[in-house]
């Protein structure tokens, strides 16, 4: 681990203390995990504290962990993952927070801290159904007007549920259940640890 990342981890430990659920450095990237109750508070500290100074929210995304490792996942499924960047300190941080309830995932919005969260949270809401409390305008953004469901959840099929066509009798566009069969050319496999290991190449 480089001296810079060590300094960042040390600063995070000092400033956040027991708000940290986990703090890891893997392949040169620092990942911080906090509980949903401490999310806003932590985010504010990350932005404003002179030893951290994460001025930019580069990315915010939802992740659905329910199928991770072919069902080996335990714990809450939905998480919001933020990628923060500090221009003055020139370092980056990944901040992950799990939504406690899988049935109705709710997280506080960081829109008031970083305005760039506006569309990112709308996207995570649209695609994963994570509700961001306090977001000023939580509408769907990428899917069609009137779309039902959250397409990036793992239980949503890749072919979707409905297809659209023009109906010449009704003289308008109609939605109907999909007629295509799901097809998987290359099956998804997870082999045992040593199989196809890059190190053995």
């Amino acid at each position, binding site marked *: 681990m480089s001296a810079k990342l060590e300094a960042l981890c040390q600063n995070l430990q000092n400033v956040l203390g027991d708000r940290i659920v986990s703090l890891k450095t*893997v392949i*040169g990237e620092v990942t911080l995990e906090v509980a949903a109750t401490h999310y806003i508070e932590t985010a504010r500290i990350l932005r404003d504290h002179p030893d951290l100074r994460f001025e930019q929210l580069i990315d915010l995304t939802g992740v659905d962990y329910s199928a991770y490792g072919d069902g080996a996942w335990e714990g809450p499924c939905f998480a919001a993952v933020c*990628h923060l960047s500090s221009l003055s300190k020139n370092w980056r941080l990944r901040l992950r927070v799990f939504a406690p309830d899988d049935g109705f995932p709710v997280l506080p919005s960081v829109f008031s801290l970083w305005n760039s969260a506006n569309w990112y949270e709308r996207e995570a809401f649209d695609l994963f159904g994570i509700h961001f409390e306090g977001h000023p305008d939580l509408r769907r953004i990428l899917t069609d007007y009137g779309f039902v469901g959250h397409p990036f959840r793992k239980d949503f099929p890749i072919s979707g549920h409905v297809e659209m066509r023009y109906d010449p009798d009704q003289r308008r566009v109609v939605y109907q259940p999909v007629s295509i069969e799901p097809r998987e050319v*290359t099956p998804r496999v997870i082999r045992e640890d040593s199989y196809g290991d*890059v190190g053995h*190449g």
Partner: protein
Amino acid sequence: MAEIRNYTINFGPQHPAAHGVLRLVLELDGEVIVRADPHIGLLHRGTEKLAETRTWLQNVPYLDRLDYVSMMCNEHAYVLAVEKLLGVEVPLRAQYIRVMMDEVTRILNHLLNIGTHALDIGAMTMVLYTFREREDLMDVYEAVSGARLHAAYYRPGGVYRDLPDRMPQYVENKFKNAETVKRLNEARQGSLLDFLEDFTERFPTYVDEYETLLTDNRIWKQRTVGVGVVSPERALALGFTGPMLRGSGVEWDLRRKQPYEVYDRMEFDVPVGVNGDCYDRYLVRIEEMRQANRIVRQCIDWLRKNPGPVITDNHKVAPPPREKMKTGMEDLIHHFKLFTEGMHVPPGEAYAAIEHPKGEFGVYAISDGGNKPYRIKLRSPGFAHLAATDELAKGHMIADATAIIGTIDLVLGDTDR
């Protein structure tokens, strides 16, 4: 007295100045924009979801189709993320080729942006000039990868093949006579590097031509100076990156601050703006093209002197050479497994970001150890920039909306994913 109220108009989704399928709902008070609400997603293809159903290698061509004017840069972020997870070393020559092609792509992208931006706000001629040069660079793309647009040239572990020794030639037909063909083929007699070097010698004069047309042009300045002003603080809060951030005077370039590949060996300057308006961003882009040209020249010099492998010899990641695959048993197995089942990427997560022509393009990849990604999140620069349209356009006249869309350097393929 008649009641006066704001009215709302629809800009797009099919509008020549919308750079794709952008629907912009504009609320107007007379001719002044009160609120701009972009509706995106008309080009949403679910690339991130599709990527979960394809192997790591099969995903490379999808990346081309995101920002379809800077194809190789998108691939670059993806292969960097995969390489980070795999922990493979990329041969030095491949790194130089990538840097060179990235800069070619940067020139391609900025040429399209400046040309169409000028076209949108009334300067017809620009687009004819910039597309002339784009044609040469498209030929470079075609020579290295076989495709003018969707290259799929970068692969995890290196690049698909080495740079070609000869350039494709024009042939005579009923539209081009022998004389024209001879003139067109003049620069194409040598290798790709010769052609590109010839281009880099010509290119600074071309940029001077663009500047003659626009930089001091009174109409261009009237349309861009003071339009869409962003302060450095707001640019940071809104998640701006790339020329949009540098136009506001923040010196932040990933190539310099967090160098990847061989950018730390390159000499180049990072231009920054002063006022943060459309005109400054235009100047930043013009200067970036000149700097990109400088980097391409440095890469050409190095590549001429240093032959070598261009893709890793780890055959769990990259296929063995064709001849070996035909003769060696183990190579045949590697080849078969790689192209059917695909490579297995160790569990973990990685975020790789590059200085894309439009800003920071990042790929956040999560692997659970399978032959397909568990989740890919593409951080496209245009998404954050377009989200700020409301703030940029508020208080401007309706005609400035096109200037603002142009300066964002919008490509909907990359915004909608």
